[in-house]
């Protein structure tokens, strides 16, 4: 099924093949070919019919039996109702059988049974507004039309039945109007519900297809991406071996490879496994996504496999501090020094370590610089971390490079973010 969805040639979901949607009847059916979405409604209708059948039997057979001039025939009518309920419930169980002919037959039977009351009840009973023999059962066909063809069809069916009702009980109009209004309401609301369910189902299906297609695209992109990277790596190798001008090309290829590799990496929508997508909201950010772009030939960024989530402001400040540290490396160690950035995520704090293999800072120079007001390192790194409620430690051994360790506790208090 995944392949089918992914190829986006398939416009309809696989189970739409046998649905009513294949028959586009004239008269705009609001419910498309998605019978599955209305299944619960059909089941509810079946329950309603049986319940109303019981109620009608109770009314006609017991409570109002005195109002019937032909009680025997009334029972016959009830028997027809029962049989018809069973027939329709079985028929409606399969989506392809919910056809206009069947629905019309349902309506016709309901009308017929309703009108039979004329022959079954005493005129005085009808004047008094006693419930017809079908009681609430006749709403079943209105609901069936509504579920199948929407509010419009439901309203029409309600009007037809209500009209017959009105014709029969024209002496007891208030009571009948009640019934008509209720029927209309039921038809319209249920029709609306059915269409809503169908729309939601369609949207969900669409979303599933889109996601499958995009996942397929992502996989393809990763494949292509990897192929390009490999070729560049090869060119670099061959160039290095051949020497001369080829070596220059090789170097360029190497640089391209390094930057392309970081372009589609974790946190930038690329290669993370689907199990760990970085859930960023407007409040939080994945620190990895902010730091990985700093990768280059000279800078290696090492991160854990899961997202490192921090408040957006804090994450950006921390990333700025890291960038400042990397700038320092470039400025004080020249273009040849290499730097490594390590991101560690512990439950209580986030630690970022920046190490370089430059000449290191002679002892005392740092304190000297801070004291004399050349605040470079002091402000852009230490100051930032202090403002965030964290700490920055700079260690350096001349000849062995410098290490900057930034710690940021996961706080419960709001940080004072320097604006």
């Amino acid at each position, binding site marked *: 099924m995944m392949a089918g969805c992914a190829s986006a040639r398939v416009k309809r979901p696989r189970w739409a093949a046998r649905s009513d949607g294949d028959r586009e009847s004239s008269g705009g059916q609001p419910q498309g070919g998605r019978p599955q979405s209305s299944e619960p409604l059909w089941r509810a209708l079946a329950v309603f019919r049986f319940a109303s059948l019981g109620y009608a039997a109770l009314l006609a057979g017991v409570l109002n039996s005195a109002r019937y001039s032909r009680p025997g025939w009334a029972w016959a009518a009830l028997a027809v109702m029962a049989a018809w309920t069973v027939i329709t419930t079985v028929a409606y169980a399969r989506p392809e059988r919910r056809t206009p002919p069947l629905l019309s037959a349902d309506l016709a039977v309901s009308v017929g049974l309703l009108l039979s009351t004329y022959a079954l009840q005493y005129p005085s009973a009808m004047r008094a507004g006693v419930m017809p023999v079908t009681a609430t059962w006749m709403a079943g066909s209105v609901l069936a039309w509504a579920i199948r063809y929407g509010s419009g069809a439901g309203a029409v069916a309600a009007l037809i039945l209500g009209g017959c009702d009105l014709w029969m009980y024209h002496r007891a109009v208030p009571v009948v109007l009640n019934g008509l209004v209720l029927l209309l309401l039921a038809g319209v609301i249920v029709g609306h519900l059915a269409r809503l369910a169908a729309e939601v189902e369609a949207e969900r299906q669409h979303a599933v297809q889109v996601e499958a297609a995009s996942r397929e695209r992502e996989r393809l992109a990763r494949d292509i991406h*990897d192929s390009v990277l490999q070729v560049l790596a090869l060119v670099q190798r061959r160039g290095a071996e051949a020497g001369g001008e080829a070596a220059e090309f090789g170097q360029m290829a190497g640089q391209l490879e390094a930057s392309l590799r970081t372009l589609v990496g974790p946190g930038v929508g690329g290669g*993370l*496994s689907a199990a760990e997508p970085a859930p960023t909201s407007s409040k939080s950010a994945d620190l990895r996504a902010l730091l990985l772009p700093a990768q280059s030939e000279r800078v290696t960024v*090492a991160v*854990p*496999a899961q997202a490192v989530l921090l408040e957006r402001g804090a994450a950006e400040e921390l990333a700025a501090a890291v960038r400042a540290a990397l700038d320092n490396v470039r400025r004080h160690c020249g273009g040849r020094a290499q730097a490594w950035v*390590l991101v*560690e995520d512990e439950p209580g704090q986030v630690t970022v370590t920046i190490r370089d293999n430059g000449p290191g800072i002679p002892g005392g120079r740092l304190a000297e610089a801070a004291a004399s007001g050349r605040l470079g390192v002091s402000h852009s790194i230490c100051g930032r971390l202090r403002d965030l409620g964290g700490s920055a430690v700079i260690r350096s051994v001349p000849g062995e490079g410098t290490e900057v360790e930034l710690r940021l506790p996961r706080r419960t208090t709001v940080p004072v973010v320097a604006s």
Partner: protein
Amino acid sequence: MAQGEPIRVMVVDDHPMWRDAVARDLTEAGYEVVATPADGAQALRVAGSARPDVVVLDLQLPDMSGVEVTQGLRAAHPGAHVLVLSASGEQQDVLDAVKAGATGYLLKSAVREEFLDAVRRTADGDAVFTPGLAALVLGEFRRLATAPAGDGAETPKLTERETEILRMVATGMSYKQIATRLVLSHRTVQNHVQNTLNRLQLHNRVELVRYAIEHGLADTDPPGTMRDGPK
């Protein structure tokens, strides 16, 4: 691997040019390239007759993931050490491959000397770590420490020393530099890193078996036949 015999290497990669380049480099350096399968299934089939000491394995294969191939190889041919290569850097699949039993990892764009060095170390069974991989492993131990513990299962923990060493590897220090800084021997540093990896791999194997039992998969099949590790 008898003394004096060249080390047998199998190169698994679906990119023909790349495969040939690597095979050529290895042959020139004195290794014996015994097979060059182009996909995972072929690799598992051929490994039996080729009996490699080292398997250089691309993680992106057309039919199976490199992780599955690693599992299969470790199950069926425990004598072969796996060096996984990836073009796009250290991501979840690299971590999974290492957990599944790979001895080391290298980026495809590593220079020839680095690559040959890695193959030699893999043949000796020494772990080959990049800074990125060290960070992934650190993160994995931390994740295991905070994840809800399985019934009775011991979550593997890092000692202080091991954490320290892994952090140094992750910030680009060589074993020699680490040894100097911590006043240890080179071999000791190597052992620490190796132990870390072994514990992670053991934990993964235990998890796989438990997963199989829980889900009623046949417990007579070797772990390599399963498609997924525990999530």
